[in-house]
């Protein structure tokens, strides 16, 4: 077939016009979308961006939405949950949406220093006045309010739930088989390591751990045990010297603890490491208290099938991390977002959400008897312990610092650097 010149020119022209039209129309619909914001305060709907898309997290979100619909029947809830990668897929998407100035009405983020990047970028609003409006200052522990207050003295998010990071999970059957009392209370890491030695000699994996972030998680509990709460907090504000002998001693403990762990750790994530304790392939596992859901899902009972206690040397300290909700700058429906934040901070919202998710309320006025046995012990500790911020979960440092610390830790635990190099790399990372 042969086309004459005029036909081909017409076709080309038509193609160009089509393309131009397509470009215009997509631009036009974009304008239409943002045109909504202008009229009214945008209280008719709220898009809530989370990574709670499955399991107990999804159940928690559903329960929270139930309370939200009762408290604010006129605001439509739009679920913006993004699944995958324990939140990393959601964070990637959020990063580009904020960059493109197309924020959701509110998004989930770890409370504490992880928010610093958003604050510096002027992407989230100060919500301090909402704390007063909703009366949250009195019902959250003072320690927690301190920990979630940013450097400039303002608060940028409202925590929905609290988890504890410094918990050891153990399989009592494995311990008894090797002559160790599962009810033993360890005063410090040395006492614990004596038992780990016994297990190592018996050919059992004494301590299970997974990939880099769980190793950083272990590191933070060891630092907390070695330095105490005050000096541990000092690591993040610069008042504790990373090059000090105390830190060296703690890192030596960390090295020692890593020598008790499984060799396939870098290929695993936390559920597999915790599963090793559930299955009796390992004796101990250090993991945050979301692990309790893994035990309970498999009908294991606290006390008989598994035991849990604070990491030796950290008794009386609550190493916290919290999910929280923010108010992005330029949110299309700020009034809807405020309604959501009110529900998140309310007693009914926190109780419903945490009963389903397995974490504990950030509020201290919830009735503990409504919660499970483990949650009750956590609520009790949260009310009376010193509260410090978790490193591995973004409460203590901004993302860049955490990434640098993770890199240094992976280098050390994979055998590419020695302890002195590790310590100086950590010091450099913390300085940012």
């Amino acid at each position, binding site marked *: 077939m042969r086309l004459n010149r005029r036909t081909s020119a017409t076709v080309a022209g038509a193609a160009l016009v089509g393309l131009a039209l397509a470009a215009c129309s997509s631009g036009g619909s974009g304008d239409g979308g943002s045109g909504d914001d202008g009229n009214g305060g945008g209280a008719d709907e709220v898009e809530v961006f989370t990574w709670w898309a499955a399991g107990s997290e999804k159940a928690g979100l559903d329960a929270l939405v139930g309370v939200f619909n009762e408290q604010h029947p006129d605001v439509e809830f739009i679920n913006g949950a993004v699944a995958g990668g324990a939140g990393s897929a959601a964070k990637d998407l959020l990063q580009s949406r904020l960059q493109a100035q197309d924020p959701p009405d509110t998004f989930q983020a770890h409370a504490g220093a992880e928010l610093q990047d958003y604050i510096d970028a002027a992407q989230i609003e100060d919500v301090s006045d909402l704390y007063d409006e909703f009366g949250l200052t009195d019902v959250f522990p003072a320690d927690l309010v301190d920990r979630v207050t940013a450097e400039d003295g303002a608060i940028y998010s409202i925590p929905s739930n609290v988890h504890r990071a410094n918990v050891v999970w153990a399989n009592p059957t494995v311990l008894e088989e090797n002559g160790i009392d599962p009810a033993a209370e360890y005063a410090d890491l040395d006492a614990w390591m004596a038992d780990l030695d016994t297990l190592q000699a018996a050919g059992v994996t004494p301590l299970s751990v997974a990939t880099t972030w769980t190793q950083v998680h272990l590191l933070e509990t060891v630092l907390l045990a070695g330095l105490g709460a005050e000096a541990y907090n000092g690591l993040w504000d610069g008042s504790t010297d990373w090059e000090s002998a105390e830190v060296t001693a703690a890192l030596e403990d960390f090295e020692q603890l890593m020598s008790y762990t499984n060799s396939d750790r870098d290929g695993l994530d936390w559920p597999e490491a915790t599963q090793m304790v559930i299955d009796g392939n390992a004796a101990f596992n250090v993991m945050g208290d979301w692990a309790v859901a893994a035990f309970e899902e498999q009908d294991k009972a606290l006390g008989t099938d598994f035991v849990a206690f604070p990491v030796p040397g950290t008794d009386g300290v609550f190493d916290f991390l919290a999910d929280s909700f923010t108010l992005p700058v330029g949110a299309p429906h700020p009034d809807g977002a405020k309604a959501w934040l009110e529900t998140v901070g309310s007693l009914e919202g926190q109780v419903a959400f945490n009963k389903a998710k397995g974490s504990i309320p950030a509020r201290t006025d919830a009735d503990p008897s409504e919660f499970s046995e483990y949650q009750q012990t956590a609520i009790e500790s949260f009310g009376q312990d010193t509260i410090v911020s978790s490193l591995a979960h973004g409460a203590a440092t901004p993302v860049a610092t955490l*990434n640098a610390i993770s890199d240094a830790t992976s280098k050390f635990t994979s055998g590419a650097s020695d302890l002195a190099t590790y310590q100086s790399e950590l010091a450099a990372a913390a300085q940012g």
Partner: protein
Amino acid sequence: MLKSLRRAGPPLLLLAPSLILVAVFVYGLIGANFRTSITDNHTAAQATGQEPSAVVWFQNYFALLGDEAFQHSLKNLVLYTVVFLAGTMLMGFVWAWLLDKPMRGEGIFRSIYLFPMAVSFVASGVVWRWLLNSNQGESASGLNRLFQIIGLDALQNNWWNNVSVGIVAIAIPAIWQLSGYVMALFLAGFRGIPDELREAARMDGASEWKLYRHVLFPQLSPIALSALIIIGHMSLKAFDLIMSISKPANYQTKVPAVDMYVFKSSFDYANAAAVGSILLVIVAVVIVPYLIRTNRQEKR
């Protein structure tokens, strides 16, 4: 003037949409990426213009190339590429050579060898993560367990968890996936050589080795070069397979593409862009001479 416009106009008009799209989305974005890489845009605040960012020219590049961690990534990339290339070329050639002999069931074997290519790196990576489990002795699984069962205990090793050459273990699944593709290329090459050439060589008394050395290999060299370029640039951009077998934070399996991802997730756009530019240059070093060569051949 008008005449030449009339002659050149329609083709230009037809090409214009793709030219414009390529100009904006390929070359425009390469330019934008380069511009980011020469700034000190290392924080979220600078990315949104809350704090000023300045042009620092090639400082990021010098800092990266001087950084021990990035050198480790580059070394891993070289190791991975060399093993991946050598492995696929060797396996692909041997399979093609075997299948070139007249035999029954050739089609079945061809499909079997080509099939792994149809699986995504992410899906096969999940399986290979288990196969390449680094536990040895009692708790071994995957390939290490297989070695125990068949009595080759000495072959057990910690695979990708070896801090100096662990990345080579990740080349194994990559070789498994792409050898079939190289085989298909070589097979087409073998089939493209007329039988007369072989017959003529045999008539002249060439031994089997001489036949390959002087008649078949020279005919296959353009195919081999294409295969090298295709596999080579895939290997330089390796990311998905490594991410699904290992984790981005694992030091032993870091490559530049993983560094780029980690930089980006910590809001360090300047360094992420610089790593991207470095990767582009490395790929260009491989591809550009090839393009020039094919261009010359076409002109001839």
